[in-house]
């Protein structure tokens, strides 16, 4: 079976480890906090967060930054559960 994109252990790579320190940006803290609040309100849980991340396309998974994956997952899981209507975040951004 082909190794899924999130399953990185032993994935062949010579890429160096970027060891730059990075303080979390406001939107990254906000994304973490939204997901945490959703978990505490019972709207979604950590396993669903992971399922949402792991169902990203391999190309998108590798392109996205860490909290972009969280954001993608929260949106897709909440849409699946009917908390958000399809495309609702896009419409809010366009509005």
């Amino acid at each position: 079976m082909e190794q899924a994109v999130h399953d990185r252990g032993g994935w062949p790579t010579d890429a160096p480890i970027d060891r730059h320190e990075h303080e979390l940006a406001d939107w990254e803290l906000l994304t973490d906090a939204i997901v945490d609040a959703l978990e505490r309100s019972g709207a979604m849980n950590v396993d669903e967060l992971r399922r949402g991340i792991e169902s990203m396309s391999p190309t998108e998974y590798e392109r996205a930054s860490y909290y972009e994956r969280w954001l993608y997952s929260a949106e897709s899981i909440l849409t699946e559960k009917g908390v958000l209507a399809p495309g609702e975040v896009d419409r809010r951004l366009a509005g």
Partner: protein
Amino acid sequence: MSHHDHDHSHEPVAADEPPAGARARALEELLVEKGAIDRDDVRHRIDWLVSRSPADGARLVARAWVDPAFKERLLVDARAAALEVGLDPGPSPLVVALENTDAVHHVVVCTLCSCYPKALLGPPPDWYKSLPYRSRAVSDPRGVLGEFGLTLDEDVEVRVVDSTADIRYLVIPRRPGGTEGMREEELAALVTRDSMIGVSRAGPPLLFKS
């Protein structure tokens, strides 16, 4: 009501913010309007997250160095040991402390994602979440440690532990030599974030001499 007349003011946004920033704010706005989350809860979590630091984990390690009975309790049940000294061990059901010795060296990774004892160490460094670290910590741990400037003797066994949402790990690094007379608080200052992930050693004993 339209979203233009909601009852909070927009905070200034960093100039270099990626599109995901606006997306996160739109998501928060929608979820608050729907009552799925509470805005104060979100603010509180941000405050909590920026208040976590490796200094908390360092307190556990320093206590373990000076108090063998506490070290045993930490190794048996790190959650309970953290609570014992008044620290928040976080939501993970199991926090496991692993002791580095002159024979065994532990390194922590999360190959599947980024599980990490945030409550005790603060948010994980970016490299911990990076794809190359998650890949190579498993296939070439000594090479990875070398990139962090840590070379271990060949006869030291390297154990790589893979975190999950249910089990998170905290490494107890070796106590540096020359620290015999130091107090617990002084020792805690030697315990770095990276040493508790297992990619570096604790110390050195005196970085600044007065």
